[in-house]
Each structure stands twice: as structure tokens, then as C-alpha cells.
């Protein structure tokens, strides 16, 4: 049943002489939710950014089905439409309303009918509980609301893969959940997703697969239950120990 969608082969990413990611190989199937973990600075965000060519890569290939994704691809904007991304910083366009933010790319890039996209946007906004904020400006929204809009904005492009780069990291704790619920809902619907996060509870709940990146390599590629209960490598144990401290409270 598994239909491979995203292929990463021998990916090499360097900043100058410094190797950030070395020989990364990964195949993501359609409908799979992959959570990428790792300590700060391990290259997990960079990895995500290589997947839609926001970062040029120095070696290897990234493909969506047969189409290769590189920084200088001629059809880069076509491929990026198929890969939605939500960032950590609230990246809505401040001069446009919520609806304007959502409509911009589908109407200007894909040339779709405005009425049709508006209808879809309203349905998506309703789904994330923000239908009544369609005419608000980003400055009038809370961080959690902004991130939900950013997710809707990406979804309106009908991407085949969604990338989430620490989308709850900059949020106040009480707003983290509302964004995570939207992502869980997407996972339920069978969206193909790659998620970088520091929230272990959420990772465990949402993931079909956990990747642990350390020092530019994927050192674990595991089922979440196995990863969180019986991690194989020492590095994974060490990493999980970092969160042990918080767990007794969190698990209640």
C-alpha cells in the first residue's frame, strides 16, 4: 500500500567548510507523519529547509516523486507549491487580512478563481476555529491564531507534503495545544507531514515515524512507541533523558 512520495538521497549540506548534514537518506511514504527530533543545532531545521530548497544543498538529491528539488531548478516555484511549509516565526504578511494571506498564493501563483479559493479558505478557517477572524489583520491575532492561519495558508495551496519547522516553539504554553490539535487533525486526515518539534508528548502522539538527527546524521529511524519506550542507541537514550526531568508531571 505504501506509496513513496519524497526521496532524499545522500543529502550533503555545508555552510562553507562546516558540514551540517552528511549523507542523509530518507524515503517518506504518502500519508506518513515523520517527526524529526534532535538537540538544538543538530541540523533538523536545516534539513527541513533543504526539502523545499530554501537552503541550497551541496550534494545528493531531494525528489518529490520524479521531480528533483534543487535551489536552481527552473520549476522550483511549481515544486514549492506542492510542499507547504509553516515556520517558527509568525510569518503572516502583515499588510493583508487573514483571508488576504490565504488567497494570495492560490490566486496569484496558481491562478485559481478567487470565489472558489475564498470558499475553500473559509471552510479551512472554520475547521481551525477561526472563521470569524477572516477579516482581521495578523497584528490583531494571538500567536496561536497566527500559526493556525499560517497552516491554513499553506493548506490552501493543496500541497502534497507539509513541513512544520518548530511551529509551536515561539508560542506561549497555553497556545501550543490549539496549534498541535490542528496538526493532529491533519495527521488523522492522512496528510503527509514532516514535523520538527521539541514537544515529546506531541511527537509521540502524532508520529508514524521518529527520526533522531545527531551531528548531521540520522541516528534513529523508529516507530514512536519503540523510540520512546526502548530506544536502541545510546545517543537516543541520552537525548530522551533530557526530557525525563519533566515527565512525571506531564504524564498525569
Amino acid at each position, binding site marked *: 500500500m505504501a506509496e513513496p512520495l519524497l526521496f532524499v538521497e545522500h543529502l550533503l549540506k555545508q555552510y562553507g567548510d562546516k558540514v551540517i548534514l552528511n549523507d542523509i537518506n530518507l524515503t517518506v511514504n504518502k500519508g506518513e507523519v515523520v517527526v524529526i527530533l534532535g538537540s538544538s543545532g543538530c541540523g533538523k531545521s536545516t534539513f527541513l529547509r533543504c526539502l523545499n530548497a530554501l537552503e541550497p544543498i551541496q550534494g545528493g538529491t531531494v525528489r518529490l516523486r520524479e521531480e528533483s528539488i534543487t535551489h536552481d531548478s527552473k520549476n522550483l516555484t511549481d515544486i*514549492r507549491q506542492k510542499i507547504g511549509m509553516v515556520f517558527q516565526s509568525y*510569518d503572516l504578511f502583515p499588510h493583508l487580512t487573514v483571508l488576504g494571506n490565504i488567497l494570495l498564493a492560490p490566486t496569484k*501563483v*496558481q491562478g485559481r478563481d478567487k470565489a472558489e479559493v475564498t470558499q475553500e479558505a473559509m471552510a479551512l478557517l472554520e475547521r481551525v476555529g477561526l472563521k470569524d477572524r477572516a477579516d482581521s489583520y495578523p497584528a490583531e491575532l494571538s500567536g496561536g491564531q497566527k500559526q493556525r492561519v499560517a497552516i491554513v495558508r499553506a493548506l490552501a*495551496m493543496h500541497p502534497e507534503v507539509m513541513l512544520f519547522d518548530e511551529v509551536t516553539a515561539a508560542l506561549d504554553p497555553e497556545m501550543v495545544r490549539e496549534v498541535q490539535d490542528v496538526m493532529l487533525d491533519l495527521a488523522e486526515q492522512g496528510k503527509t507531514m514532516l514535523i520538527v518539534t521539541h514537544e515529546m508528548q506531541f511527537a509521540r502522539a502524532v508520529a508514524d515515524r521518529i527520526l533522531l538527527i545527531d551531528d548531521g546524521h540520522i541516528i534513529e529511524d523508529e516507530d514512536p512507541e519503540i523510540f520512546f519506550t526502548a530506544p536502541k542507541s545510546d545517543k537516543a537514550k541520552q537525548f530522551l533523558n533530557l526530557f525525563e526531568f519533566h515527565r512525571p508531571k506531564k504524564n498525569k
Partner: protein
Amino acid sequence: MADFNLASIGLDVLFKGKNMARLIGGLGVALKISLLAVAISIPSGILLGVLMTWENKIVRFFLRVYLEFIRIMPQLVLLFIVFFGSTKIMKLHVSGEMASIIVFSLWGTAEMADLVRGALSSIPKHQYESAAALGLTKTQTFFHVILPQTIRRLLPISINLITRMIKTTSLVLMIGVIEVLKVAQQIIEANRAKSPNAAFGLYLVIFILYFLACWPISMLAKYLEKKWKV
């Protein structure tokens, strides 16, 4: 206080002959110089400002030199250089008014370019990235995402530049342009014997005229700043 009249504060001269009309005409000259210069400065400043954000080091270097040169020079010195320089050295006859428009355009362009450069580079990097991630091309990103935000940041500050330019036109009398201050001086001179207080009255009127010219513009800037606060 019984003998208080218009003459005691020097306002009587205003109503002699066509004095009031002359003053307003003088203000008209000042406004004409500044508004023409603004009309030239804004498009050319936008162009240079965009160029200043380019990677090209040579382009940036020359623009930097131009900008610093114009900003370091007092406007009066620039006026003298252009007005006297053009006649003596280049054997061109440039009228005072023309020289003023040239200088104010050069100055306005430099100031505007710096404002544009500042506004452009103040747009956070993630605005470019999220546009790119949505599949927008560089051109689409510039016109739909970057430019509208830049204009919003730019409009209030460039309107303030306009009021600065209007006020600075008071220097052009030094190269013989008959603007509002010069007209006032002429009226004062002509009425020295009969209305010794004319100076006070006339400069008071000029104060009011400048205020009336600049205040609405300043209010507009404030209004836009509030409205577009992002």
C-alpha cells in the same frame, strides 16, 4: 492699550497695495520649487534606494558616496555650488529658481533613497522565505509582499521629508530667488520709515503661512502612520 492698532504690531503693511498677494505669491514660489523637487526626488529616490539594496558593490559604493556628499554639505553650499558654479565654470545660465530645483532634487533624491533603502532592509527575512515557500516567484514576492509593506513604512517618513523640503526653501533667497522671505524683506525695506514694526508682523504672517502649508502634510503623515501601523 487704547492706541493699539495694526501698525503697532506691524500688520498694517499687509494691507498696503498688493503686499498680501505678493507674500502669498512668494510662498507659491517656495512651494513650486519644493513640490517640483519632490516630484523628481520620489521616483528617482525609490530607484536609487532599490539599487542600494543590490549586491553589486560598485553600484553601492557610488551611491554611498553620492548620498554622503549630499548629506554632509549644507544645502546653502550646494545652492552656491550649483548656482555660481554653473555660470562661472560651465558657462551655463541657470536661473536661481532652476538651480534651486536642481539642488533640492539632488538632496531629496539622496534622502529618499536612504529612506527607501532603510524601509526595504527592515522587511524581515522570513517574509521573503514564507513567500518563497508558497511558490511565489521573486517578482511576485516583491510586488505582492515586499513593496506594499515598504510603502506603508515609507509613506509617513517621506511625507515628513516633503515638509522639510518646503521649510528649507527659505534658503533660496540667498541665490536671488524671490520667495516668501525675500518678498517680506522687500516689503520691510520699502516701509521702513512709515511702518518700523513691519518686520514683526510680516515674519509672523510668514510663520503662519509656513504652518498652514506644512501642518496638513504633517497631520497626513501622522494619520497614515497610525493607520498602517504593523
